[in-house]
């Protein structure tokens, strides 16, 4: 058995990453592509949200490297034995969070369960009370007395660690800038902290510090407590929310990867060739658009489920099953969402085919394929980019909605949608369990808000009509 497991979605996400890096390299040598990105970097909102998004991306990527962990006892015949379980690099890093499972619900930072149980006391008598948690606050001798001090102490350590880390990173940045510009460290530091640089490093550093402090703080607390409580089966909610990041990112990006080829190709073809090609493509997307998307998605997911239950032997682990379902969801979401971009591109191509430079190319006898790739495609790329970035947050939200109606990702997979779905019952319960929902909301909200703000900046940078008014 191979220790490294490459799931379908892992492969695709790293393919996408390679594609993005390739595009970055391509764009860095072309001024008309570089200038808008420079604008994005130089805007405060752009840089700030970029820092936030890269935190999410980092967790998502760490969570996309899967392997079989070595089984606990070392192999008898020299080699290590690998368990059949599949975990990710991220799981490995936060293994504490994963393994410390309680019995059932417990509130954030609690030391006791959220449900009363019959506890057998030392003298044999029983009493109904909230039992102590197995892991959360287990280090405390007397929870009532030490809890506050422990939380405060851990917070302080966390914050100090965060500050120290950001101080190191900040200085590294300053040294990098000093080396690049070739002037004194002191001068660069004053420029950066005074906010006089072209790139708002100060804002970037501020957001970075904030995130690092927050991150270290939660890491410290999570090491001794359940930061966001536990769910019905006692799993750490904070861990679930972190694991959901990968699902959200995947849905947001892979769907785009699926829909882009169809949307770009068909959209440009329809606009460029006109005639029956246009009619055909238009009918295709009008028809597709008039089928309710949820219906299509439900049908596709149900079909997949039947396939999986009939061919259970093809799947080595639960993770692989869940992964295939996620991939399928991305595919089907892509199929239902390419029409919007396709329509936009058709309109743009209709306009561009009549533009003088396309006419001039025709007069040179340049072939259709060349005209499309050299003249039309580069001139619609800004629309593609804007749509992709704008769609991202919509897709993350769509996943939540679909999981809520049970046609989203696999129930065993961590996703914000599943968390919200389970919260349906938790909210109806007395006393209310609010932390699953709250955790999902906080993480999703931060991601979607920064994605939206970022896409606003990107659109401003790439939209030629807005560019003139700047």
């Amino acid at each position, binding site marked *: 058995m191979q220790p490294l497991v490459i799931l379908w979605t892992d492969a695709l996400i790293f393919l996408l990453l390679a594609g993005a890096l390739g595009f970055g390299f391509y764009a860095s040598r*072309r*001024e*008309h592509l570089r200038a808008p990105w420079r604008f994005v970097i130089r805007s405060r909102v752009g840089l700030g949200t970029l820092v936030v998004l890269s935190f999410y991306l980092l967790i998502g990527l760490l969570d996309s490297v899967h392997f079989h962990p070595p089984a606990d006892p070392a192999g008898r015949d020299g080699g290590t034995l690998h368990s059949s379980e599949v975990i990710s690099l991220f799981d490995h890093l936060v293994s504490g969070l994963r393994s410390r499972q309680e019995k059932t619900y417990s509130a954030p930072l609690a030391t006791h369960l959220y449900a009363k149980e019959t506890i057998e006391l030392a003298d044999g008598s029983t009493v109904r009370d909230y039992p102590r948690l197995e892991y959360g606050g287990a280090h405390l001798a007397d929870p009532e007395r030490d809890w506050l001090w422990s939380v405060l102490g851990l917070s302080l350590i966390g914050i100090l660690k965060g500050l120290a880390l950001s101080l190191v990173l900040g200085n590294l940045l300053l040294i990098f800038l000093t080396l690049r510009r070739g002037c004194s460290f002191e001068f660069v530091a004053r420029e950066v902290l005074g906010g006089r640089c072209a790139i708002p490093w100060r804002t970037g550093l501020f957001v970075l510090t904030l995130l690092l402090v927050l991150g270290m703080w939660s890491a410290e607390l999570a090491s001794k407590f359940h930061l966001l409580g536990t769910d019905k089966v006692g799993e750490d909610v904070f861990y679930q929310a972190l694991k959901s990041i990968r699902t959200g990112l995947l849905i947001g990006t892979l769907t785009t990867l699926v829909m882009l080829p169809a949307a770009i190709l068909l959209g440009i073809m329809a606009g460029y060739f006109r005639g029956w090609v246009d009619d055909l493509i238009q009918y295709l997307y009008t028809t597709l658009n008039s089928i309710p998307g949820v219906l299509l998605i439900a049908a596709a997911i149900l079909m997949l489920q039947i396939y999986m239950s009939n061919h259970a032997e093809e799947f080595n682990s639960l993770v692989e099953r869940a992964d295939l379902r996620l991939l399928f969801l991305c595919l089907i979401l892509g199929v239902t969402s390419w029409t919007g971009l396709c329509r936009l591109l058709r309109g743009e191509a209709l306009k561009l085919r009549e*533009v*003088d*430079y396309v*006419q*001039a*190319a*025709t*007069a*040179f*006898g*340049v*072939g259709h394929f*060349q005209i499309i790739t*050299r*003249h039309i495609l*580069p*001139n619609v790329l800004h629309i593609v980019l804007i749509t992709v970035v704008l769609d991202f947050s919509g897709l993350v939200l769509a996943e939540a909605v679909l999981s809520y109606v049970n046609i989203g990702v696999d129930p065993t997979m961590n996703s914000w949608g599943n968390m919200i779905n389970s919260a349906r019952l938790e909210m109806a319960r007395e006393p209310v369990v609010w932390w699953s929902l709250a955790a999902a909301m906080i993480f999703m909200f931060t991601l979607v808000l920064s994605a939206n703000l970022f896409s606003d900046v990107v659109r401003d940078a790439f939209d030629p009509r807005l560019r003139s008014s*700047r």
Partner: protein
Amino acid sequence: MNRTLLRVEQLTTVLEGGTRPLHPVDGVDLEIRRGETFALLGESGCGKSMTALSIMRLLPPVGRVAGGNVWLGESNLLDLPETAMRLERGGRVGMIFQEPMTSLNPVLNIGEQIAESVRLHDPGSLPRLRQRVTELLQAVGIPDPARRAGEYPHQLSGGMKQRVMIAIALAGRPELLIADEPTTALDVTIQAQVLGLLKSLQQQTGMAILLITHDLGIVAEMADRVAVMYAGQIVETAPVAEFFGRDGHPYSRKLFDSLPGQEKRAARLAVIRGSVPSLASDFPGCRFAERCDRVMARCRGEAPGWRVTGPGRGMRCHLAETPWEAAVELSGRAGPGIAPAAPDVATAQSDRHGEQLSVEGLRVHFPIRQGVLRRTVGHVRAVDGVSFEIPPGRTLALVGESGCGKTTVGKGVLQLIRPSEGSVRFGADELTRLTGAALRRRRSLLQIIFQDPFSSMNPRMLVGDIIAEGMRAQGVGETPAGRRERVRQLLTQVGLDAGAAERYPHEFSGGQRQRICVARALAVQPRLIVCDEPTSALDVSVQAQILNLLGDLQRELGLSYLFITHNLSVVAYLAHEVAVMYLGRIVERGTVEEVLQAPRHPYTRALLSAVPVVDPEGRREVIRLEGDMPSPSDPPTGCHFHPRCPEAEPACAGSYPRVTRLSATHCVSCLRVGGAGAD
């Protein structure tokens, strides 16, 4: 002094927002008297419109007036609170803009739009609002005003819309009308109508007009006094008669010299080198010094002050200090500017071995489809039977108003639009029958230069790649290195720096871009170039540069041109033959002398007479054409022109007149010329 209506003193406007603040208006003084027409003349980017907007306080958000005074009568417009200023706009000061298409609200009928202005600025007329609207429409010469008031802007033609704009401006009974390039977007015959209308309105109401224009012809015909603006400053002011008569600022002189015309045919046009400087730069000396060919050492170091050179005249030039006689001597009107060029006909004759373009009965019909099944219910006859030949090394000018199908002819010849009928032969090939790869191979023979130098190049490509694109497609120049070398040659040939290949199109000015377009067309060694209004988006001085370039190339390479234009002075300068188009058909064709000197078709005559001319002696009696060109989807019966023709007879409505040959080269389609007998 009490005759002064508007006095602008040291007006300075700043546009912030860029990397450096721009000064589009930099210390402008002007004075407009009651009832006169004052023209503000200059190339684009000189600050003419900004001056008008500053007077009206309608600057864009990044702009502000940095200093100066604007006195309208007794009130200083720059000191008024915004509420009072709103009453002045459209009240005492009316304004009309260049684009009548975008200045009207498309969802309100025109009666309401005029009424709105009446309500605001002419409360006295409120009780008889409808009547007043009708009066105004009548005043601007719109027939059947009561019915027209209920129509929406899209139902009106461009000329009509501009009339409605004028009616709106008149509603407030203005004392001053600011007309910002009021006819630039209109055809010559419509331009003549609108200018005539402005003149007669001025006589009736006694209002003053501030006319902003770049057209010297319009200045000569309309204005009483003229101010020339250059790079944010007024460089010369003069009464019109003297302005065109005697020597003035070198810039004004150069503008006259760069105007094309028949008398300059054999020579290169005088050009002003370079282009208008950026308004963000600092000017230590004279702003025109870099482009002036009479520049002195002093001009670069010391900015010239304003000097009065005569009654009502003044200019901003160090030359104004030298006595006039000396200045005249120095300039030498026909001197260095107009260099004689080699006679072109001889070269053309020697190049007869090349291929000839012949077009026979070319028709381009666009189907009009309606209903669910998209059935064809009719055709737009954009081009309806056009025939001509262009021998090698010659230029045929295709002249006509917009919408007459000239551009479609050009694209039909190039097979960019496949003709519905007819033949286009070039050399031995029948282009209309070629398809696919065979057509693609022949494409290098025929090339095109477009009107708009901004949209004719892919903004995402380097200039070098743009020029090399055709070479790659046609397989000219085998190696990339060879192609790069050829690109450098071509750039030098059109008068650009070879380093331009490494830059993007947006880094160049309009004229430079048009040169790149010429280089791109030349890259595949064409024999004929369709020039689709190549200079109409350019300023006069830049136009001269491009026309010279085209002329030189024709002499050197023996190219033929199909020159599509509406500018008759360009035709007179560079064409050998002229074909006048009206509604998809050629109504008159002949050599340039025949058509321009002795036009026979009434439409040609009307077209020629409508062109504003600088020289008062060259002016003809303007033949006013009524109405607009009919739609090509539903042309009038008989002669297409008869509903507008001042000489129409009842017979004209009967059948389309046959072509009458007046000489070997000159033919006309008119019943009155051909006489009876046309079927």
